[in-house]
């Protein structure tokens, strides 16, 4: 075991390998307030990568309904339960937030790596705390999931009323889109007895070497997000490859520029933004003020990592759904939730502009620029003053090419009077 710095936890933690960071890191932000669970992302991924025999139950990208859904079934409940058993009541946060090094304060609980030292599974010691899902856990994803929490018992056709009022709905659910987080400290990589998993230095994408893998499934046991999948026909494990040919800029559509993955580009709700970020030698993010991901995660702090307490430093970030009860969100996204929702409810001028970058172009945006526009109106939102400016935001690709130019207000086109009924 060696000691590595995990900025999401605001402290050092233990990891089986020496700290090392890629030149750039695959990362993404999902705005869960906008996800409608249409599964376009899921099918884009499926039809690109996992359409063959043996991959039928394999969904590298999936969208599940929270709180009752999960793929595999109850993955998060089970791992949270294991952590709680190992460290009862101790998974707490404390300490003052500090920018970059500890934006959510300091985690006083134990990560899956730290717990593994004292946790011995039936097969011996583990590198990371985990469990192997049963075969049936992978079956029937999304079945019976769309049930709201907190609904009073009703009868068919009888809808609950008056429960939907912000800041929190009494009856709630939300959609959670997930894929491999290409973690900075991957548990799958740590657990592989054949050293078949590697994290690429150029973009931090975590891959399984199919020639080395022998299908022991230790990675499936160790990954807390359960994002490696066993394929019976080849007897190996497969996982999300981050559409690396697109990230490398080899998709002809991108004309040489790095492109966002298939699931990001296919999102009809424009909830997704993916890009590459850079690290400092100590494991924190290198300042890149006008990279939209850096802005959303570190400046605006509206995008939060998923189950950061696991300790793998996932690189998937989520803008939490604002109607969901806070204790649930704090468990899922850490103590940064309240500030993130406050910020998102009444967005400032820059945040509103950056949110326009989501889903506008399939190429990756590395830098943005805002051209101030006129003030459109002002009002009061949630008791605070809100001013809307019609700013223009411009996004640039890897080589500085302008790929996006859009305004905060969508252009409005009115059909002229004489053509009113021309259809």
């Amino acid at each position, binding site marked *: 075991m060696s000691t590595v710095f995990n900025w999401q936890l605001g402290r050092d933690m233990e990891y*089986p*390998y*020496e700290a*090392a*960071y*890629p030149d750039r890191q695959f990362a993404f932000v999902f705005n869960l307030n906008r996800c409608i669970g249409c599964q376009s992302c899921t099918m884009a991924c499926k039809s690109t990568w996992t*359409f*063959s*025999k043996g991959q039928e139950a394999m969904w590298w990208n999936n969208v599940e309904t929270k709180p009752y859904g999960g793929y595999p079934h109850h993955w998060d409940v089970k791992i949270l339960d294991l952590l709680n058993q190992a460290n009862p009541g101790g998974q707490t946060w404390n300490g003052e937030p500090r920018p970059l090094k500890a934006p959510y304060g300091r985690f006083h609980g134990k990560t899956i790596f730290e717990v593994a030292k004292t946790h011995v599974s039936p097969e011996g010691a583990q590198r990371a705390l985990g469990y192997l899902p049963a075969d049936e856990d992978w079956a029937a994803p999304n079945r019976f999931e769309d049930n709201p929490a907190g609904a009073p018992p009703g009868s068919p056709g009888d809808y609950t009323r008056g429960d939907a009022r912000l800041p929190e709905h009494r009856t709630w659910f939300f959609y959670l889109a997930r894929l491999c987080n290409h973690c900075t400290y991957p548990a799958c*990589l*740590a657990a*592989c007895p054949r*050293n*078949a*998993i*590697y*994290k*690429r*230095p150029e973009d*931090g994408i975590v*891959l399984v*070497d199919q020639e080395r893998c022998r299908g022991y499934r230790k990675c499936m046991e160790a990954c807390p997000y359960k994002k490696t999948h066993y394929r019976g*026909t080849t007897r190996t494990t497969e996982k999300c490859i981050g559409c*690396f*040919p697109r990230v*490398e800029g*080899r*998709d*002809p559509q991108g004309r040489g520029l790095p492109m966002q993955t298939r699931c990001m580009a296919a999102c009809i709700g424009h909830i997704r933004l993916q890009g590459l970020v850079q690290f400092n030698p100590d494991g924190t993010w290198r300042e890149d003020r006008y990279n939209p991901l850096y802005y959303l995660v570190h400046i605006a702090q509206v995008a939060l990592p998923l189950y950061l307490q696991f300790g793998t430093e996932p690189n998937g970030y989520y803008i939490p759904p604002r109607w969901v009860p806070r204790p649930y969100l704090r468990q899922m996204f850490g103590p940064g939730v309240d500030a993130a929702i406050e910020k998102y409810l009444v967005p400032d001028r820059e945040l509103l502009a950056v949110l326009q970058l989501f889903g506008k172009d399939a190429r990756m945006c590395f830098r943005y620029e805002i051209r101030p526009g006129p003030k459109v109106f002002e009002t009061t939102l949630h008791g605070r003053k809100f001013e809307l400016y019609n700013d223009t935001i411009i996004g640039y690709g890897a080589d500085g090419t302008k790929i996006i130019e859009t305004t905060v207000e969508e252009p409005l086109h009115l059909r002229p009077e004489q053509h009113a009924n021309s259809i």
Partner: protein
Amino acid sequence: MPTPSEISNRQSEITNLKSAPHRAEWAPPAHAPRRSVFGNYRPEPEPAAAEPVAAPSPLTPAAPQDHPETSDTALARAFLYRFLARAYEDPTPLGWAQLCAPDTQEHLTAAWKIAGDRVAGSAPAEVPASPGPAEETAGALDHAECARIGNPPDGRPEVCAAFTPAAFDAFLDAYLAAFGHAARGPCPLNEIEYGDLKADPLFQPHRLADLAAFYRAFGLEVAEDAGERHDHLCLELEFMCVLAAKEAWAREHQLDAEPLALVRDAQRKFLREHLGRWTPAFTRRLERHATGTPLAALARFTRAFTLAECARLGVPPGSEDLLLRPADEAAALCESCGLAQALPGAAPAAPA
């Protein structure tokens, strides 16, 4: 009707394919070694110095000077493909007359002399140095046989002797017996009927889609009155005929290396993934089924030519033992999901 954007997308796809063939592949680039930021993963030592690479990688087409091919060879190959495509078509008296015409036979003999030279020599130049065990035995057997068929005493291929105007009825009988009137006779003419359900990574529809993509990438479409699926042997042979003709044109007009490499690479891939994969099994099956008829001679000739092509393009030929897919595969898949039983009015499932 394709929309204007579909047309422009397709055109840009084709342009991209032509301008940068390596980009059309989503395989990892050959120059990028697998590396990890963590100490767990050490890359394998490079075998480059130890064993010289005998076979060109399928992703990197050999430079034109590597193979002493001329436009004549390519034209001869195109002719042979065309001849075979005609021969496997539904037999008609007119078509048979063309196949048996002295002119055709003369051209066939000449073309075979040029394009069949690969089977005459000892080791084919472009065959991989170390084929797998199965390929090795199959290759050894076939090579002897090919040499026999490839070097007829008078230089005239066996089919010329078998294809005589009087043999039409015998050929027609054998054709109907082998291929049948129904969707699937004893020796199916369609690629996707061949393959191991477990080993084949592609489902049947994927194979069809892949074939359609091959045709479309070169601007070809199946004629509406053809009435055949994309995986019909004649269509695949005709496609190779077009590619060989394109190669001949590129060589004749001394185009720069890129179009030539592209068309050469496409032939290699098509042979590896489609025609060369199933033809050995098909011809073996056909030869056994049609013993003593002109069709058997055609089968032997097809096999000799396919293996010569595989050797020429450095592609390992498919297994002769490739089985037919079970005819009721779709039905079996359908039953397993249980939907049919669940529908109203369905027969109750048999007790286990």
